[in-house]
């Protein structure tokens, strides 16, 4: 069940996805105790942010739409949580970093690593200040600059969490890897919306949000499959994973590890344990000795 992610050793391939819980050291510890092989924090930026007003979450038929608005205490305050988390965590701690410009990403990433982060994951779904409207993760040139800046600022692995809200995710993935990304997380939420028919109003206070949960799993599988064909770095699959079968599907598509978020609402925190426990018998039954052996297997079938 061991997995090597660009030098990070995971005892099992399940990880806590960014944005879910992950405010406090105690919560991260609790998730690790529930069986996660690694934990990713909430996205943290240079300055504190309140996030959006409620409603920040609305349920869709087969998933959730959220627009939290990156609430966080800012890296200087959050560094304390990173330090406390490092004291108690037995699993790798990955800090999710966001910014509105290259320099911001680099500064936050550097401070996170100084506080003890084992790796950083770049959340590139923020709008770029110098180019209002377009997300950093939608523009390969800007994304490459962000990755390069962060790579020169930190000596730990740098993962890039890719947005599916692009014409060609593979093109963006290649740009990130070329710029030095040590791994890719696919995918972030899919842009979505819900409108209340009675009041005729958008429900989320931010109007638009991101869809997660089982509804996006087929989209995420396709993204991982396509990216795997073109890049050499490890891929972390993310999107709608609820049970071990979902996890295996991601491995077969090309993911080396998987992240779980929305499923926590359904199966509580021990979803990590139940997913990991389900993978082992599958490997045994199919005659494999490790998760590594089935990564990308569907490409050979």
């Amino acid at each position, binding site marked *: 069940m061991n997995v090597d992610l660009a030098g990070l050793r995971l005892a099992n391939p399940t990880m806590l996805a960014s944005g879910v819980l992950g*405010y406090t050291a105690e919560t991260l510890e609790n998730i690790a105790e529930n069986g996660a092989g690694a934990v990713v924090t*909430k996205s943290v930026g240079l300055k504190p942010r309140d996030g959006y007003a*409620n409603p920040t979450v609305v349920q869709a038929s087969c998933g959730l739409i959220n627009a939290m608005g990156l*609430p966080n*205490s800012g890296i200087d305050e959050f560094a304390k949580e990173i330090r406390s988390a490092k004291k108690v965590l037995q699993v790798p701690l990955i800090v999710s970093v966001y910014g509105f410009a290259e320099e911001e990403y680099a500064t936050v990433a550097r401070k996170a690593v100084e506080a003890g982060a084992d790796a950083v994951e770049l959340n590139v779904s923020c709008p770029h200040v110098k180019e209002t409207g377009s997300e950093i993760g939608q523009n390969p040139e800007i994304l490459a600059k962000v990755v390069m800046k962060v790579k020169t600022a930190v000596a730990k692995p740098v993962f890039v969490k890719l947005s599916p809200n692009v014409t060609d995710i593979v093109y963006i993935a290649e740009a990130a890897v070329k710029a030095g990304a040590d791994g890719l997380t696919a995918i972030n939420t899919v842009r979505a919306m*819900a409108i209340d028919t009675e*009041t005729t109003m958008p429900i989320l206070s931010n109007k638009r949000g991101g869809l997660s949960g089982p509804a996006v799993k087929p989209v995420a599988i396709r993204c991982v499959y396509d990216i795997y064909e073109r890049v050499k770095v490890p891929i972390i699959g993310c999107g709608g994973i609820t049970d071990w079968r979902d996890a295996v599907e991601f491995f077969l598509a090309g993911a080396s590890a998987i992240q779980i978020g929305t499923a926590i609402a359904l199966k509580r925190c021990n979803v990590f344990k139940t997913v990991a426990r389900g993978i082992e018998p599958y490997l045994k039954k199919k005659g494999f000795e490790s998760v590594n052996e089935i990564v990308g297997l569907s490409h050979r079938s």
Partner: protein
Amino acid sequence: MRLSAYRIAANKHRTTQILDITTQSATVKTYTFKDKECAKALPGQFLMLWIPGIDEIPLSVLDVKEDGTVFIVVKKVGEATEALHKMKAGEIVGVRGPFGNSFTLKKGNALLVGGGTGITPLLFLTKKYASKANRLVFVMGAKTRDDLLFVDDLEKICGKGNLIATTDDGSYGMKCLATTPLEVLLAKEKFDTIYTCGPERMMLQVLNLAEKHGIAFEASLERFMKCTIGLCGNCMIGKYRVCIDGPVFTSNQLKEVKAEFGFSKLDFRGRKIPL
């Protein structure tokens, strides 16, 4: 199974009309509306109320009826509740819920301690369980007479002798904190369970008294709520999520989070701030 599980009936967004509004005090109104799911609420559970275009806020359930009617209590404390206070019967609100766990009814003598609008879930508990409990004593505290809610209802259910009211300014009942008569009561009478809801500092003192006298204890907590389904982490107290693991906690659970209970909560940014 997996698909249907995501359509958690209680969490689905729906809208309903405000049916009736009653003014309880200068700052408190009660609202009724119909919602099949929320009408299944148990004492201690809460719902999320959407004030279209303004905000979505957590509110304790005051009462439910078999025909689907739900009663809630709203104190004017900020932008969202002010907007709600301006709304009229017939206007549309959104609801999700009910969420969280509920108070557990234990046999024997029950002591209920409510502060301010914190008496809301306790009144619900009293109505539901008054006939089942051996003996029921209700201690309620507020700043002034005007802030003491539902005195008549409580007197009717508990009996006049079993309702003890306190106010900070002495405008009604005893002039002291709700915890003062509690010490007297506990010294002379045996109670099996204490249920409390109100300001957390008060609840902490009640917890200490319950511990001192070896009485089972349940408290209903309040935190900033966003997702209410255990994902966002904004309502954490220690390792517990108030939206799912709570809002009702036992003394043993609260002892595990004693660094925070009565002292701090997470603000909207997820940063620990003093209560």
